[in-house]
């Protein structure tokens, strides 16, 4: 009963898939965080002028990621861009992260008391010095747990990119299942890998958070 045709090579194949998952997560988080911080600051500092931006980003949060992938993939072909599936996935996930990150950064910036900013301005800091030296560090502490949660959820959402033909962890496990016909075992291994990755990120995040609190 316990003999299996799951070989070491299959495990390596799964780990290759894991690498793609991690790479996708990192790239999309990088894109999303950079744009998201800019958009979040814009949303927090100029709430009136940035309402259209809020509507636009809201679309990314109200449409399933799967549909976004398919739509963007089709759009890419229509526009005649010769992009790989991987870059399409990065762009879509990056926009998706941007949409969430904007909200996280916005609420972080808004959590800095106005009186604090007035105090820093009256000490002679310029507007941008105040943003950079006072608002950003304080907002970062508030926004960080949300950001880690976002990172975790994006790592799980990367499983959906299989639909546009990228072999990531879940797709790799699917391929192996098709070959050796032992779905439970292979899926459990894939699930365990996801679980461990999430746990590691969550633990690291919690530790960093605790260290920041100490310095305050």
């Amino acid at each position, binding site marked *: 009963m316990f003999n299996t045709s799951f070989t070491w090579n299959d495990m390596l194949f799964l780990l290759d898939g894991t690498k793609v998952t991690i790479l996708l997560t990192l790239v999309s988080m990088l894109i999303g965080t950079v744009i998201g911080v800019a958009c979040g600051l814009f949303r927090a500092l100029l709430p009136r002028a940035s309402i259209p931006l809020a509507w636009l980003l809201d679309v990314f949060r109200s449409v399933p*990621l*799967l549909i976004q992938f398919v739509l963007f993939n089709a759009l890419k072909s229509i526009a005649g861009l010769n992009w790989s599936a991987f870059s399409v996935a990065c762009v879509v996930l990056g926009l998706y992260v941007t949409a969430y990150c904007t909200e996280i950064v916005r609420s972080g910036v808004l959590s800095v008391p106005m009186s604090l900013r007035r105090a820093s301005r009256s000490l002679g800091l310029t507007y941008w010095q105040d943003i950079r030296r006072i608002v950003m560090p304080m907002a970062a502490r508030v926004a960080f747990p949300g950001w880690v949660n976002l990172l*975790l959820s994006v790592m799980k*959402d990367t499983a959906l990119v299989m639909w546009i033909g990228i072999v990531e962890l879940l797709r790799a496990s699917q391929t192996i299942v098709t070959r050796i016909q032992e779905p*439970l075992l292979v899926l459990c291994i894939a*699930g365990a890998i996801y*679980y461990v990755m*999430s746990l590691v990120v969550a633990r690291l995040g919690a530790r960093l958070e605790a260290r920041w609190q100490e310095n305050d």
Partner: protein
Amino acid sequence: MFDYNFHWRAAFKALPDMLDGALVTFETAALSMILGVLIALCLTFMRMGKQPILRGFAAAWISIARNTPSLFQVYILYFGLGSFGLHISSWAALLAGITINNAGYLAENFRGGLKAVPDTQLRAARSLGMSAPKAYRLIVIPQLLRIVFYPLTNQMVWAVLMTSMGVVVGLNNDLTGVTQDWNVKTFRTFEFFAIAAVLYYLIAKAIVGLARLLSWRLFRY
């Protein structure tokens, strides 16, 4: 650059089918939410209790639901259960997967919400002569649901978005499934999926709007 003719008419001809699919999507999401809230309440109380087995079970459920992709959960229900000779339909797998996921996330929300209900409320109810289950049912849970109302709405939107994964395990009567069916027949991918995206957006907005109306009506004192 754009040597592509958009054929919206073909896509609009599929609109009635897609609206039917949207209804299935909404029903699936609503059902999974109702079941999810009930299971999440059970999990929350299990985790507060003293029974180590129940505590462990609840903790395991919550951490697995939160730390693995929801697509993986649907997969393991659809393909994995086959190893035990249990073959469930793709709709059942999708519903069960989303419910497990919802229950895990909601249990975490409920735990936070329960902390926000003051202890004195429960004690006051008990000292008025209510039994513990009655006090929970009439005093604690209504206040809890009020606190978690906003996360609940959010989770409902999430549930709707998650139903789109049904197509990966072969569901063909929800919104994404119907869209994919038409797409396979006509290869007008962009048009069909654009309409599906608009429908999903409208469903999500409708849920948020409805929740706002409901909260206005429910919590007005």
